[in-house]
């Protein structure tokens, strides 16, 4: 057989092995389907409408650091921050002795269709912050904004700088019009009024768009790779937890989504300082407290070029950027992120306490 000819016997054996693994995978998936996300104990401390504020039970001796409030995105569920014991940034924070609060925005329905960004940022987020301040009798909290929640946190901190001690943004878009941002390019011509007229936008619809960003990897290769992994039950359970999270996307309140797409993606208002909430202009230069900006260097949803410009937009003299060599999802679940991110944040906060 020439060197340019694949060995048919080897190819046949490969397919045989794939068939064996497929069979084993299908058998194993039945058990893995019941794997539930979430691992750390938490209790509900406040709620309003669909929004709930949770406080996590401590796992270690308190580090003596101001509590940290996590503001997650509206577009996915926040349990990604605490998926399972070995894939949980929150667990990393708890192990470091931090006092952790998390905002769960819930699942908006038709009754929430007129909730706009002002309701979310100056309303719910503000009242969550106030709840933490009241509980601890402190003047300001450490705020960690994740993805879209990071954009919200930037707006909030600019409007209420006295209530935020330190600001951490993670995989957060700031400049929404950079050349690598495919999502941004796609929505430039979107008629947002027509979109909002139809009511809340379904999570399935958003998922379809996210899958369209890398359709071959996300709708095809991923499931072949799953089979290649064979019947390792732990791997299958990991896969199913991720699968559950990816497609567990809340509908988006029509008014808030319309504003978010128009103001941020289409008009890039955060960069030119023309976002206005409740009559007040969001001026990022008013963010003078320490800022830690963590971004993923391989992020296809929020490319680094969307996050990095924060450095020149905020008013603080204490700005730190930290790149993690992972993709967007990897920031939550990769082994690298588990090693780097919680310890980095905890150390950074301790230095500024």
């Amino acid at each position, binding site marked *: 057989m020439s060197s340019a000819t694949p060995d*048919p016997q080897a190819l046949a054996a*490969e397919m045989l092995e794939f068939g064996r693994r497929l069979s084993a995978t299908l058998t194993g998936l039945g058990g893995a389907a019941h794997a539930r996300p979430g691992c750390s104990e938490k209790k509900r401390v406040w709620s309003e409408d669909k929004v709930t504020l949770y406080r996590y039970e401590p796992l270690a001796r308190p580090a003596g650091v101001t509590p940290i409030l996590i503001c997650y995105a509206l577009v996915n569920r926040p349990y990604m921050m605490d998926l399972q014991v070995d894939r949980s940034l929150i667990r990393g924070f708890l192990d470091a002795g931090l006092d952790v609060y998390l905002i769960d925005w819930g699942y908006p329905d038709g009754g929430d269709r007129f909730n706009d960004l002002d309701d979310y940022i100056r309303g719910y987020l503000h009242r969550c912050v106030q709840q933490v301040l009241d509980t601890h009798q402190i003047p300001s909290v450490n705020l960690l904004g994740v993805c879209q929640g990071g954009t919200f946190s930037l707006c909030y901190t600019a409007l209420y700088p006295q209530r935020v001690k330190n600001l951490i943004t993670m995989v957060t878009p700031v400049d929404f019009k950079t050349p690598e941002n495919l999502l941004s390019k796609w929505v430039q011509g979107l008629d947002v009024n027509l979109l909002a007229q139809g009511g809340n936008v379904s999570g399935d619809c958003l998922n379809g768009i996210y899958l369209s960003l890398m359709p071959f990897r996300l709708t095809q290769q991923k499931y072949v790779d799953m089979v290649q992994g064979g019947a390792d039950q732990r791997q299958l359970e990991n896969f199913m937890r991720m699968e559950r999270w990816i497609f567990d996307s809340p509908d988006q309140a029509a008014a808030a989504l319309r504003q978010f797409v128009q103001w941020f993606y289409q008009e890039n208002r955060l960069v030119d300082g023309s976002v206005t909430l409740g009559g007040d202009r969001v001026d990022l230069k008013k963010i003078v407290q320490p800022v830690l900006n963590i971004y993923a260097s391989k992020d296809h949803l929020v490319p680094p070029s969307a996050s990095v410009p924060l450095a020149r937009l905020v008013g603080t003299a204490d700005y730190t950027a930290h790149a993690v060599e992972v993709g967007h999802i990897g920031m939550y679940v990769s082994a690298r992120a588990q090693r780097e991110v919680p310890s980095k944040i905890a150390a950074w906060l301790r230095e500024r306490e």
Partner: protein
Amino acid sequence: MTDTPRGDPWSSTVAQMQQELLQLWLKTSAAPADGSTLFEWWPKIAAMAGSGLPPSFQQLGAVWEQYFNLGRAMLQEPSGEDGKGADLASRARSFAVVMNTWFEQLSSQLGQMANFRTAPDAQLWWQTLMQPPGAWAPGTGAKAAAMEFAALGLTRERQEAWQKFSRLLAQFQEVQTQLAAQWIKIGAETTKKFAARVSAAGPDAPGGATASIKSLYDLWIECAEEVYGGVAHSPEYCRLIADLANSSNAVRAEQQRELESWARQFDLPTRAEVNSLHHQVKELRAQLRSQASPRPPPPPIPKKKRVVRRRPRAPK
């Protein structure tokens, strides 16, 4: 497989077929070049689709079936005249044929995927919402003319609504057609890129880029994503995506308008009425909040105590 099959009946069926596959493999191992028997169990399962197969299996079965088809294409490539197996290039061509079929299927699915809301079937919509049974409806041939003809008479407004809906639907379908053309382009470019990469790499390339079906598959995916990325960023494709969303939203808005009109006729609550109530509730809540006693301002941020280091006094 020696493990006892667990789980649902489908898992058991798959496990049983796997056993059969192994038997077949043992029988045919003397003549491995004929690999067709390797795949007999998979079509059996695929043939049962639609008769109670779990939805996830139906959806992902297409992905795995595609993968098996790749293997089949690679193994069934006819031997050369000298009796040796076909070379890598011809096997890659067989591979590409299978992947192109897949592209065609995927393009129609993904055309819908980027859609914000699925557009309705015009005929069905017309029949269920606009027309009493047996009433006039234009045939396909008369459709274009009917869309432009002046609306007249007692049902004038309904005729106009239908004309508008038909125009919007035609726009939506036109965008879909243009998007499908982009996908054909992506498929063709991917094939070219893939062939070039296979030729450049060869089976002995470092990393075994073409040494196995899986590595070829991965290479194909990589090529497809690269080509897709180039097209997806282009102004034309971005415009099409926005047009697709806008045209489907426009169709839906027109549907909604008609449903509202029907709801009013039957004295059912309409979306407009519910929206009005929502606005009122929101305003009332805002008023209540503003009237509630304002929270005391947050305590001032305590200034850090300045530590004054004093020199120890010299002993007197």
